């Protein structure tokens, strides 16, 4: 059988055009955003909100023209709250040559992902708060909120200067988040001369907090440092109030989080936390975000949703500084960047990106009063 060379040439060129055009089209106008997140498993509570926050950020950014004229497209990947799976999905995400990686939240998953994004030179903006994440010297890894190293010292000072506590009892969830916070707290408390007499480990999803509460009651400390997930915080606080315990309650951002306040049914009143930006932050932009998010996803956004949303703004600002939407220079452009809501509404409150990938967008010393988070003190970005 003879095939005419002309036909062959036409066929080949047609194939080439067909093959090339979608790629060219994709490269020019759509920026792929990979969103590895804890969509199932024990981390689903935070991962799902993170993803929804990012997705909403992408939608809002696209409505205003995206990034330097390019539309954004987000693809979520489920890490199953499992580092081995996280490693698989980040690999998959990187094979797609994304513009940036937004996520995940759990520190184990972040650690495996960070090694690969660094190697690929892709910027990874994640939701983790554990102290050790940004201390590895990865130039492409960024936080979206204050790390534990930033949020725990103000709590210590509050305990010392305002509560005048001499003895403290600590209760923490024994996972990567709670343990890391607890370790930092114990070290800082020791430095500050606070006496931590009781240190209680709890399990995520343990059935009862009665033993923890009774142990805490028996310890008769001046204050209680609570570092746990929202629902466990609420359960602890409910029991704490019911038993008529009087010690001052301080803790991580979860202690004054809206979800914890709601679940605790009033028991969170009086608790104090130092937290980065969260759903109860008295910032109009954030409050309107919360309302829009609730309307859209029928669930209350916690700080993870806000972090995911802000991460999109970080990409916008970095690309603008870089002058083009290029994944390669993104990380370098982010370092040292100051992002303000007047130019980038998605950031909602001014954010300073620090040299090691930490950020500072201010924090609040918050106390829960009458079922509402009330700001005691605002510490703006330095």
């Amino acid at each position, binding site marked *: 059988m003879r095939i005419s060379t002309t036909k062959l040439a036409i066929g080949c060129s047609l194939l080439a055009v067909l093959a090339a055009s979608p790629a060219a089209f994709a490269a020019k106008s759509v920026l792929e955003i990979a969103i590895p997140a804890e969509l199932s498993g024990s981390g689903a509570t935070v991962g799902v909100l993170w993803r929804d926050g990012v997705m909403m950020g992408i939608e809002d950014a696209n409505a205003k023209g995206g990034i330097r004229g390019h539309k954004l497209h987000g693809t979520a990947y489920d890490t199953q709250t499992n580092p*081995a799976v996280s490693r698989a999905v980040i690999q998959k995400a990187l094979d797609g040559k994304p513009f940036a990686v937004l996520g995940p939240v759990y520190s184990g998953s972040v650690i495996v992902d960070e090694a690969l994004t660094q190697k690929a030179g892709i910027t990874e903006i994640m939701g983790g708060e554990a102290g050790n994440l940004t201390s590895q010297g990865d130039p492409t890894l960024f936080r979206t909120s204050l790390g534990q190293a930033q949020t725990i010292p103000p709590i210590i000072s509050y305990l010392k200067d305002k509560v005048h506590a001499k003895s403290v009892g600590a209760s923490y969830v024994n996972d990567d988040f709670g343990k890391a916070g607890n370790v930092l707290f114990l070290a800082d408390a020791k430095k500050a001369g606070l006496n931590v007499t009781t240190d209680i480990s709890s399990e995520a999803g343990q059935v009862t907090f009665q033993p923890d509460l009774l142990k805490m009651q028996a310890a008769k400390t001046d204050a209680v440092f609570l570092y746990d997930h929202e629902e466990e915080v609420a359960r602890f606080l409910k029991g704490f109030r019911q038993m008529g315990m009087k010690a001052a309650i301080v803790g991580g951002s979860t202690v004054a989080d809206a979800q914890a306040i709601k679940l605790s049914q009033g028991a969170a009143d009086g608790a104090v936390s130092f937290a980065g930006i969260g759903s109860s932050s008295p910032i109009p932009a954030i409050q309107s975000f919360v309302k829009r998010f609730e309307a859209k996803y029928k669930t209350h956004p916690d700080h993870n949703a806000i972090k995911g949303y802000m991460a999109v703004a970080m990409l916008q600002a970095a690309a603008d500084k870089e002058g083009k939407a290029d994944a390669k220079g993104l990380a370098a452009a982010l370092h040292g960047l100051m992002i303000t809501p007047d130019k980038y509404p998605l950031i909602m409150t001014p954010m300073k990106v620090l040299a090691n990938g930490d950020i500072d967008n201010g924090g609040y010393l918050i106390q829960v009063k009458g079922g509402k988070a009330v700001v005691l003190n605002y510490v703006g970005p330095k």
Partner: protein
Amino acid sequence: MNQPHRVLPLALVLLLVAGLAGSVLKPYPIYLISLWAVYTISAIGLNLTLGFAGQISLAQASFVGFGAYATALLLPHGVPFGFTLVIGAAISFILGVLLGFPALRVQGHYLAFVTLALATIAFLVFRNESWLTHGTAGIDKIARPIPFTSDVAYMWLCLAALAVVTLGVWWLLRSPWGRAFLALRENPVRAASLGVDVRTYTLLAFAIGAGLGGVSGALFAPLGQYIEPSEFALPLSFSLLLMVVVGGSGSFLGPFLGAMVSVALPEVLRSFQDYYLLIYGVIVILLLVFSPDGIVGIIARGVARLRPTDAPVEPKP
């Protein structure tokens, strides 16, 4: 489908195809193929315990953990990877013998619960003894052995390890030991009356299965280059058990196929992202309803239908 000598070439060809495919693919499929190889080794071990010797174990994840921690902790001290692998396998083997002792006393569901309890305790030790295991923070930057540092090279290492394990298990199953394991599963009282030392073979079935879990763990740690305790908790044990059952418990090829389904399913069900674990669960249940001998059973029936049947054999009364 059950006779290892018939399907061994098939298994080895599968490995080779996977490797060749991986060599031209992107890092993600390469990682999946490596992960498949690692899980398959572990599932082969569990299949030996469950499928061939008839002893259920929900502690396989713990043995993967022992292998992974041994490697992750010893590598920084300059111990070569080959040794860490052997040490990890040996630790798992010895602990597997210990785990086998309950199996001499209790069977079936009771054994399932004992192994479940031991697996929970092992996880707590991994998590709480942070002076040794670095606790919840995990162990980061686990080095891959030279010259297998690249993704492709490490994939070949995993596949080679799987090939060695496959050959070893093939050898084991066609040896008198394999026959004794089967006898143990089918009818221990009769086996004992024929001189089969039920006690020793039960312990061996556990120990070899556990040892393979250790080998799998030793390969797992440098693959992801990070490990943390929660990876070796009960969900992995359940997941390995489901791999064995989905593939076909007690068949030589079962673990290969079961692990493949488990690794590849999220990919196949990409458009149902939020639902794929749910769908996976439903698939397992449907398999248990319609084909209790797993995918291998389905394939075997398909093959039997295509092939003209041999002379019918009288069924037993």
